[in-house]
């Protein structure tokens, strides 16, 4: 058990080093995210000019929601893990893992955690620069239980997002090009994950239905706990339970894809 832990700790540390090499790429991406945040502030600011609250929330809590989502994206979101896995399969680099006592999912997840640590730290830099301009809009709730429920929801969300990216990466066993599927899925995730707008602004029956899909737990659920859009601890606990179920389902799908994919895989060369 301990030996296994050390094995993946090293994978994590190597991941950390290789991601620090790409710190400028993350920094540039973080910088451009500020422009996206500017679009959000301008659009929703103009929408709130005509009405004091939208969906029961004032401008401040709504903008806080989008700021938190931006931070979460860099801390727990899957960036290009699907492409990396796809490349490893396509280029045959995956072959080295087949002969070693390494679980490929855990190995990739260790690297994912390292990458998110670097990208998460780097998004704080542009946010700190923008802080004087946005701090007047930020409005966080103060209940302590949000932290206690928010942390497990965030951890499960990270695992959920990585599992989805992992499954898309494994599709390379069947398809030569997965980019189209990934971007198609991103469009669905951006809506049903609450990245375009808070999901509670949708008609009640759509919002209720969305809670049974995994996308709801990718961003909206942890974001809504932290920013006060979800207020009932019992509802949140039930949500964490559903989130855990989706994680298990996705882990099962990932394992099935891995086993079946390897049957199709041909390792060539020495």
């Amino acid at each position, binding site marked *: 058990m301990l030996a296994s832990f050390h094995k993946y700790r090293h994978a994590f540390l190597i991941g950390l080093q290789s991601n620090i090499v790409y710190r400028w*790429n993350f920094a540039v991406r973080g910088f451009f995210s500020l422009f996206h945040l*500017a679009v959000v502030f301008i659009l929703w600011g103009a*929408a709130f000019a005509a009405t004091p609250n939208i969906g029961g929330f004032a401008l401040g809590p709504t903008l806080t929601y989008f700021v938190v989502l931006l931070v979460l994206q860099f801390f727990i979101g899957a960036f290009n893990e699907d492409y990396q896995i796809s490349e490893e399969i396509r280029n045959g680099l995956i072959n080295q893992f087949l002969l070693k006592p390494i679980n490929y999912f855990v190995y990739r997840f260790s690297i994912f955690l390292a990458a998110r640590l670097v990208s998460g730290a780097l998004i704080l830099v542009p946010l700190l620069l923008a802080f004087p301009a946005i701090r007047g809009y930020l409005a966080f709730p103060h209940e302590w239980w949000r932290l206690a429920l928010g942390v497990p929801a965030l951890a499960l969300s990270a695992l959920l997002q990585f599992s989805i990216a992992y499954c898309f990466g494994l599709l390379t066993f069947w398809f030569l090009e997965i980019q*189209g599927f990934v971007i198609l899925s991103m469009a669905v995730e951006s809506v049903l994950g609450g990245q375009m707008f808070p999901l509670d602004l949708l008609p009640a029956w759509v919002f209720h239905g969305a809670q049974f899909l995994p996308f709801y737990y990718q961003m909206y659920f942890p974001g809504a706990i932290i920013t006060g859009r979800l207020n009932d601890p019992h509802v949140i606990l039930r949500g964490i339970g559903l989130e855990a179920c989706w994680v298990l389902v996705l882990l099962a799908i990932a394992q099935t894809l891995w086993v079946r994919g390897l049957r199709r895989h041909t390792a060539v060369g020495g």
Partner: protein
Amino acid sequence: MLRHLEIWLACARYSVVRTLMFRGDFIVWSLVEFFWMSVNLLLISVIYDHTTSVAGWSKYEMMLLVGTAMLIQRFLMGFFWSSLFEMGRNVRTGNFDFFLAQPGNILFMASTRKLDPDGLLNSLVAGGVVLYSAHKLDLHPGLADVALYVFMVLCGLVIHYSILVISMSAAFWLTSAQGIEGGYFTLTEFSRLPREAFRGVARFLFVWLLPTVVVSNAPAQAIIHGFNLRWVGWLIAIAIGWFGVAIFVFYRGLRRYTSASS
């Protein structure tokens, strides 16, 4: 000029044949673009479920604006995106040599080698959004208004093209232009917002300094409120200005190009 048209037609024919070979790919990418356009329209729809006006624009005025922005972007994706996207990679790998040896203007050859029929197909959807919004607004533009709108959309296409050429030309200096295209998409997000929503520094930066807002606002305003000489003149001026900057940056960058092939 005629020779370049012949070259472009040959490239277009090659792109269509290639698309017919990879039909599955064509369907997936058409769906990708269609989904992303739907996402933007859904955002507008959700916002207007809770408010009646955004910066003085009604729901269908806003949809006409977003439709116009999408129309310009679909044309860019259809006619130039793949070629310019590959330009960044080709500069890094040295494959850009191929374009230097071709019998035509280098920027023209590098920009028009590939057409994306999926982008062009979705321009019909974007055009449909504009028509539907105009119908909902009970607009009855004359032939001259439509011709002016089309002309302004083409000016917008020139501006978008110029921004993309400038962005991708960064590869001549940085070697790797990976991720720079993300900057283009971020900047064009502003083109889906009404000009009146911008205040203070944002107004100066995105309305006056960068052409990201005017490209869509000018044609949309023209079709909603009628001909405005100031808007048209401004759009033509910045289209010429940014196209000039793009050509300058591209050829300055080209001087730095050193082939990477053996």
